[in-house]
């Protein structure tokens, strides 16, 4: 184990259990997410993309670190800020970009858009445009796993703003009561849209693990800019949860480098705050420093991911528009859930 790393005077918690090779792969993934989201911003501003968008620039290490610690069968529910989670859970950027363009090849077939990225086969139960909306369902997924005695966890991503919802409370409460294998991953960026923590949370950002005390739930403090710390915390949380000890609340401190949505003029915060965050808290830069990457090495990876992202735009642009009447295609499922053997003749 390497000692706790100090970066910019801030103690970094990770202990370096990940092999360098894997760390480099994760670096690439984080950079891919960054470039993807930058491209999405660009395409949105250019008027290419319908709807509205939220990017997670600055928060990449949370998505990548958490998903790194999961098994393929584990499931997640994401938020309005969904791109990073979705990429980290394994969905190819082509499918995500195509979704942004509203194409059939999109990961939700063009039905969802940025706030409704799904990839059920890869364990992504869907992003949710209702703050807190996915949490009770994650408890339910975990209940299914528990009832069937499967070694799987269900992971809810959500922001600090979401902790103010009734849905958060009821989900935390139920999960702890029934000792469900859930990880509650708080992406604590200190903002809910334009509203700073001080105007929406009765606790300081640093105290947010106290939210878990109301349920007697195990809580962990995690530095969300340090991907190794995130991986390690998530691993031990996962161990805790699958072993029947109940859910874990991860208070992951992180930072939103951008506006709430793409195009947000951020009248509510100082430009200097963002600048300083970018300089001191960039999870990609922090990992790059830790990996001791040379400029050349970085350029190579960067070129690769940029090409991948460009490719996704081409893929999306070449995608197929749905037929208008496809809008009605999935409103109801046909058939029955009755096992064939038990189907009634009636």
């Amino acid at each position, binding site marked *: 184990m390497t000692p706790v790393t100090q970066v910019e005077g801030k103690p970094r918690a990770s202990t370096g259990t990940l092999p360098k090779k894997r760390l480099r792969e994760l670096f690439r993934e984080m950079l891919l997410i960054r470039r993807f989201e930058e491209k999405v911003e660009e395409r949105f501003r250019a008027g290419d993309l319908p709807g509205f968008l939220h990017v997670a620039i600055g928060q990449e290490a949370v998505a990548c670190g958490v998903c790194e610690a999961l098994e393929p069968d584990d499931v997640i529910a994401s938020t309005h800020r969904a791109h990073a989670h979705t990429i980290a859970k394994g969905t190819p950027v082509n499918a995500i970009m195509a979704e942004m363009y509203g194409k059939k090849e999109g990961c939700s077939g063009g039905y969802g858009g940025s706030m409704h990225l799904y990839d059920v086969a890869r364990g992504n139960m869907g992003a949710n445009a209702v703050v807190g*909306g996915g949490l*009770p369902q994650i*408890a339910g*997924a975990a209940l299914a796993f528990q009832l069937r005695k499967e070694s799987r966890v269900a992971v809810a991503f959500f922001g600090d703003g979401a902790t103010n919802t009734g849905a958060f409370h009821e989900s935390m409460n139920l999960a702890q009561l029934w000792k469900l294998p859930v990880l509650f991953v708080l992406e604590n960026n200190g903002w809910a849209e334009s509203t700073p923590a001080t105007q929406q949370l009765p606790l300081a950002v640093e105290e947010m693990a106290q939210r878990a005390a109301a349920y007697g739930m195990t809580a962990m403090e995690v530095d969300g800019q340090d991907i190794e710390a995130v991986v390690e915390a998530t691993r031990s949380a996962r161990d805790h949860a699958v072993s029947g000890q109940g859910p874990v609340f991860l208070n992951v401190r992180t930072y939103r480098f951008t506006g709430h949505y793409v195009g947000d003029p951020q009248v509510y915060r100082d430009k200097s705050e963002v600048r300083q965050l970018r300089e001191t808290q960039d999870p990609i830069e922090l990992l790059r420093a830790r990996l001791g990457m040379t400029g050349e090495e970085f350029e190579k990876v960067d070129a690769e991911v940029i090409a991948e992202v460009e490719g996704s735009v081409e893929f999306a642009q070449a995608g197929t528009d749905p037929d208008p009447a496809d809008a009605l295609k999935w*409103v109801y499922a046909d058939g029955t*859930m009755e096992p064939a053997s038990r189907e009634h003749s009636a």
Partner: protein
Amino acid sequence: MPEITYREAVRDALSQAMRGDERIFLMGEDIAEMGGSMGVTSGMVAEFGPERIRNTPISEIAIVGAGIGAAIQGMLPVVEIMYEDFLTISMEQIVNQAAKHRTMSGGQVKVPLTIRTQGGAGWSPGAQHAQQLESWFVHVPGLKVVFASTPEDVRGLLWSSIYDPNPVIFFEHRTLYPIKGQVPDELEPIPLGKARIHREGTDVSVIATGRLVHEALQAADEAEKDGISVEVVDPRTLSPLDEETIVGSVRKTTRCVTAHEAVVQGGFGAELAAVIQHGAFDYLDAPIERVGAQFAPLAFAPVMEDFCVPHAADVLAAIRRTLARA
């Protein structure tokens, strides 16, 4: 054909389904030892154990939401919301989540969740324990809505709801639990989306749901004494609606009364009237009359409650109004 109560019929559908299918489990407040506030699940925890008959905290958001999540992950949950008034707490999960996941995901997801609930007036519960809110859910694409009025129907429809691959809001009526009715020896699933003609007639069609089916049948008996022949139709499934049977009935009788216990304004009768005036325009000999509760939060005192809530006499009066037209 055995005779059982509506309450027993619900329990029988649940129990029979659970015996044969490990995917089915129940969640709700006080459904275990107490058997639910209506005694519907009485005795079931002894047979199926507390893992499958799950008492929950008072958390109507989480009850429905956990049902959705478990359904997406391959279970067939049946959740109970003790009074339909408390569905107001679960609306976000029902409307934005359960109903929409399938479309939003481009067909990746099924949500085979059944939400059982009950409500209704007639026992002085006051304004917060007596609403009839079914019409809201008829307005939500992605949901199916069932409201059963007899032991046979409730058993057969509940079975079909449990096994339907879509979220179903399943309404029971509090005052119907003790009523008795014959049911087939073997549980026969009743397909969703099929109305039931309870009584054939030629002069006027009464399209009624829930408790008002029984009031309508009583009104029909009364009307018969005056030589009026009333057809009584229960849609049973409110969404998707069996327009064919309903419109067909009115085309035949040329007159129509809708009847439910919910308040008239914005109620399911409005949708029925809109569909029927459209589908049977050239046949209608009188405006469609709507019977329902007075437009007021339900007052507690029995005299006021009784005044608010529709009875057979109100259905009969509406029948007479439609027939008074040339």
